[in-house]
């Protein structure tokens, strides 16, 4: 469970999918870093990732952490967007899709309510849902 202050601080990065790209070697990092994880250069720029990507890996969590007891089972994925990967909850997935497996599924970002903060406020975060067709 996070404080409301934490969400207030990170909302810009979280809602806009802000990553950092190294101007020296090109490595893209999400979460954003103050220096490049690959070459160490401090010459990194913030970039906005597009809200569309593919599921690389996922899990269904049955034993929750405190604050997520009512969100179980919880579907968490790592989504690859261009050369970055971000962790998120997946929504709009039915039993059949889960049975077939989600790896490689094309997904798009949506703004959704997150779980309540320590002070019982409702933050907004980015989750991903199956991408709409024909785009």
């Amino acid at each position, binding site marked *: 469970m996070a404080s409301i202050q934490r969400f207030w601080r990170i909302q810009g990065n979280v809602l806009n999918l802000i990553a950092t790209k190294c101007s020296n070697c090109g490595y893209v990092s999400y*979460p954003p870093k103050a220096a490049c994880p690959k070459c160490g250069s401090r010459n990194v720029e913030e970039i906005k990732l597009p809200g569309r990507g593919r599921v690389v890996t996922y899990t269904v969590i049955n034993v929750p952490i405190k604050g997520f007891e009512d969100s179980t089972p919880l579907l*968490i994925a790592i989504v690859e967007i261009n050369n970055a990967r971000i*962790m998120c909850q997946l929504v709009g997935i039915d039993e059949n899709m889960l049975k077939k497996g989600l790896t490689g599924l094309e997904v798009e970002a949506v703004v959704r309510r997150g779980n309540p903060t320590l002070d019982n406020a409702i933050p907004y975060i980015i989750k991903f849902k199956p991408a709409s067709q024909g785009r």
Partner: protein
Amino acid sequence: MVKVGVAGVGMTKVGKLVSRSLRELTSEALMKAIDDAGGVKPDAIVVGNMLSSLVEQENLASLIADTAGLRGISGFKVEGACGSGGAAVLAGYSLVASGLFQVVAVVGVEKLSELPTPDVTRGLAWAADADYELIHGVSFSGLNALVMRNYMKKYGVSREEMAAWPVLMHENGYHNPYAHFRKRITISDVINSVTIADPIKLYDACPLSDGAAAVILAGSDVVRKLTDTPVFIAGVGNALDSTDITSRFDITSFIASNISTKQALRNAGLELKDIDIAEIHDAYSITAVISLEEIGLAPKGMGAKYVAEGRFRPGDRPAVNPSGGLKSRGHPVGATGVYQVAEVVMQLRGDFPGVKVGGDVGLTQNIGGVGSNVTTIILRR
């Protein structure tokens, strides 16, 4: 640098020890270790612990020292998530190697049975990135499940092959009187156990354990006076990776495990083929498998297959986790790295009370987070 040896070791039984407090556990382990080292009084104490804040107790070094009759000595706590114990041994080693102190006690302790499971799983998830991972509700098991699914797909590893590790650990731990679980299991027990975080099953995961372990470190001259069976710390290594798993170059690789192993071996002037026994950090089946590969005991993608083929058992070289590992001995989080060192010391001395494998050189590897803070220690008889 002063050559550092282990003069004594002590540990409590690992388990869900509801009736025992943090101070009782640490006093028992520390006093046993002091007795094992001929009753020497340490000049300093280094404490390995991750989550004592869950039991509303910080300031551990003074609490533990004072409870054991050591008021007035030096000390502090070291934290590196589940790798806190190994990092504490490294810190204690450097205090002696530097010449700052002659005798240093390293005590690892964790007390997890105090609170309901969601509080504990939340605490363990503090090893992850709070801003970018934890806000989504991911548990520590969930993070490892993301890695496990990706690994199995990438390398074509079957569910049965992944299950060979916990079966081996429960066989080894069955003989260890200190172990959390002393129960043999089968491949089908693993596969049919409840799912914690798909694809991680209950028997892929280590238990939430209480326990404390201690080792007494001293310069080689002092150690030789204190014990007839000295074991020396030949080399140490520690390396860090990202806290988050998403910005990794490859989420199925633990670069910190690889780097810290090479560092420790180089430091010791030894090669991997010299290792007779290893105690590695199998928080989950996938953690063990990737560690085996990063240490260099199996090629990438072959760790689980090697275990399924029957390697790493007592009698093989190296024998891996004759204690039963985190899976069966248990995982008293911040104490685990100290247990590993104490167990390998006893193996090399020949007085480990469980499966005996013997040998001259041992390796311990303790991991914090999902491979993000890794300490490797080489011990030599």
